[in-house]
């Protein structure tokens, strides 16, 4: 506690001294977010047997444009008495999370302190903050960005990466350049070329076979015209050790690579998109020792699953996560990355047509397929050689079809069908494959005076794993400020009667302007939950949760 007292004294002195500079307060804006929970024992899912039933995450952010070209940002976080479940134990007590000063003049932007940055699609570097996922992996150091004639954009950076309230021992260096060559093309098209480098120096590496520096190089091109676009990105990673039973190997050392091709076309009321990606040994951490940690700490690049991001609870039961790593578990379970594609199609049926009705009908299709890399795997000698474009065992596939239709001024609905294939053995190292079909019907009825009722019905059918589920939800928006809801998720077909559990939740929210309060009681499975108009991830637990978020102008 002493440490935090010193900190408050520092803050007090800081604000007293800057208050002389009245502009600091005149241009100040702040936000405060607080998420708290009281965890309870649950007869069905078990007792809460950890320390501190009451837990709370609190974030205070202050920003000010305190002088013509100068910007200041401070974020203080408090995890009292402990952080919420599913957050890293490195978030503890009260401390400064972000402190930075920017100098912005014309086309120059200099930052000293904590900063977020992304090169290209993030395959080579991305630092960002997502409070709901407990990610804040900013770099502490220097970042300089310069834009020349609107045609050349250069970024250089150096820093140490944040891990909870601590920092990585190693350094991260980065360089990114982007050239806008559109003027060289005819008509109205855009042509961009990008080249990047990221190096990570981890002095903790104590291995004759490996340098302390790991480097990533990438090149990307982006082309788009009035109705067509295509882009390509390639990344090469120098030698990096493979984790064997969670420990970086001294001898099993491999290079990594990533390729991404994306293309699409569109015209009025129609859009099509296709993405191919291949990743081999591509995850990248600021500390080799942190590789594969469950909280995604020390992660330097962003390799998201390229599948449809769903909004409904049953569509999020079997969610695919990208498989960029090399893992040799047992002889018949060896993986070295992923290869696959995703495609999307959108179409709006015209207003005043037979299928379009008075308002038009939106249709969207999505399909994705992700497989292990095929090749020669040698378990006893710990080595592999992959084939460039050959697909190995299937991890995951999905097909979905969605129709959004407004029937009248007061009634509209969304119909969604999803077919999923989830290889639980290969992804989670558990047994089995889950093939499922999901149906969702989401109805909104507007009543007078800004009142509305939303009724959500979902069903998942599968012969595998825990078999069938249903879910339903009711949300009543009393007026534009107040909203209450009840929803339930039930594994009614579970072969084990004791596992037939109702995951029920009820609560309410109040939002007015920039303030929002929520309260919820129930049993959480965990996953993406969207209610009262806001989406966030929630951890698995039983109890009472409440949140306050507010910003001040």
């Amino acid at each position, binding site marked *: 506690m002493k440490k935090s007292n010193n900190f408050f004294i520092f803050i007090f002195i800081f604000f007293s001294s800057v208050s002389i500079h009245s502009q600091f307060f005149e241009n100040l804006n702040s936000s405060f977010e607080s998420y708290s929970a009281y965890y309870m024992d649950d007869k069905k899912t078990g007792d809460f047997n950890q320390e501190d039933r009451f837990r709370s995450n609190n974030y205070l952010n202050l920003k000010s444009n305190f002088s013509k070209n100068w910007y200041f940002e401070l974020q203080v976080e408090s995890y009292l008495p402990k952080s919420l479940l599913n957050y890293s134990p490195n978030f503890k007590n009260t401390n400064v999370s972000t402190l930075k000063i920017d100098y912005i003049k014309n086309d120059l932007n200099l930052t000293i302190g904590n900063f977020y940055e992304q090169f290209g699609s993030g395959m080579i570097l991305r630092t960002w903050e997502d409070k709901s996922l407990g990610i804040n992996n900013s770099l502490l150091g220097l970042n300089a960005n310069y834009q020349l004639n609107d045609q050349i954009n250069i970024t250089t950076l150096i820093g140490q990466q944040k891990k909870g309230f601590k920092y990585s021992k190693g350094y991260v260096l980065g360089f990114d350049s982007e050239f806008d060559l559109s003027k060289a093309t005819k008509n109205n098209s855009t042509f961009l070329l990008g080249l990047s480098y990221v190096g990570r120096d981890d002095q903790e590496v104590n291995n004759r076979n490996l340098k302390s520096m790991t480097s990533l190089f990438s090149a990307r091109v982006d082309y788009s015209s009035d109705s067509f676009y295509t882009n390509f990105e390639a990344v090469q990673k120098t030698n990096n050790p493979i984790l064997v039973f969670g420990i970086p190997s001294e001898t099993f050392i491999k290079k990594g690579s990533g390729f991404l091709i994306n293309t699409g076309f569109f*015209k009025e009321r129609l*859009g099509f998109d296709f993405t191919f990606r291949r990743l081999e040994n591509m995850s990248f951490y600021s500390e080799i020792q942190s590789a594969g940690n469950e909280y995604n700490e020390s992660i330097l690049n962003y390799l998201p699953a390229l599948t449809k991001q769903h909004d409904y609870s049953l569509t999020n039961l079997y969610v695919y996560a990208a498989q960029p790593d090399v893992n040799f578990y047992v002889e018949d379970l060896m993986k070295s990355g992923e290869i696959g594609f995703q495609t999307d199609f959108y179409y709006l049926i015209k207003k005043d047509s037979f299928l379009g009705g008075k308002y038009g009908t939106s249709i969207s299709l999505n399909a994705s397929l992700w497989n292990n890399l095929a090749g020669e795997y040698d378990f006893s000698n710990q080595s592999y050689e992959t084939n460039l474009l050959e697909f190995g065992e299937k991890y995951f596939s999905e097909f979905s079809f969605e129709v959004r239709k407004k029937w009248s001024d007061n009634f509209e609905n969304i119909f969604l069908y999803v077919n999923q294939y989830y290889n639980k053995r290969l992804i989670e190292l558990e047994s089995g494959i889950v093939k499922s079909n999901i149906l969702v019907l989401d109805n909104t009825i507007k009543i007078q005076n800004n009142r509305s009722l939303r009724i959500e019905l979902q069903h998942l059918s599968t012969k595998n794993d825990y078999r069938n589920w249903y879910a339903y939800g009711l949300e009543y928006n009393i007026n534009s400020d107040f909203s209450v809801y009840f929803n339930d998720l039930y594994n009614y077909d579970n072969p084990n009667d004791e596992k037939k559990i109702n995951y029920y939740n009820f609560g309410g929210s109040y939002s007015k302007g920039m303030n929002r309060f929520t309260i919820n009681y129930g049993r959480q499975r965990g996953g993406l939950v969207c209610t009262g108009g806001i989406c966030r991830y929630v951890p698995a637990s039983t109890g009472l949760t409440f949140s306050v978020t507010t910003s001040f102008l």
Partner: protein
Amino acid sequence: MIKKITSILFLTTLTLNLSISQDKIPFMNIKTIEGRTINTKSLSNKDGLTVYSFWATWCVPCINELDDINKEIEKWKEENVKIIAISTDDSRTKRRVRPMINGKDWDFEIFVDENQDFKRALNITGIPHTIVAKGSKIIYRRIGYKPGEENILYEFILSQNKNSNEKI
């Protein structure tokens, strides 16, 4: 425990005490849908109000709001409002932005805030989030969307336009 609660209270009071002054749209780089870098100072509507709507392709309430506005876009245009939809999709989903807006025939200007720098600079805690600005001065903000709220926003814009007409 008491000390801990005190420090939470301290933070809250500090925040409340700091609730001062006006706010402006910060000037910074974001990307056009084609990937070009542009500054946010070029976004605002010179003759009327600008609505900034922060959304993402995976956020159902965000799409509901933009769909609902788009269905009656003609009446918004009559009020000389410029509607800018800022996609906060990161590289997981940003490829879906262009096909989706065409598939939906949205008549908004769309920009991409891929690493959420603009969203963070505006202290936006969750989406959907809607801001109305006059020049670069923020005059209205709202978090979340419930069916029908587009009408409240529309009425706010009507009242603002009426006020400025009366002044003339």
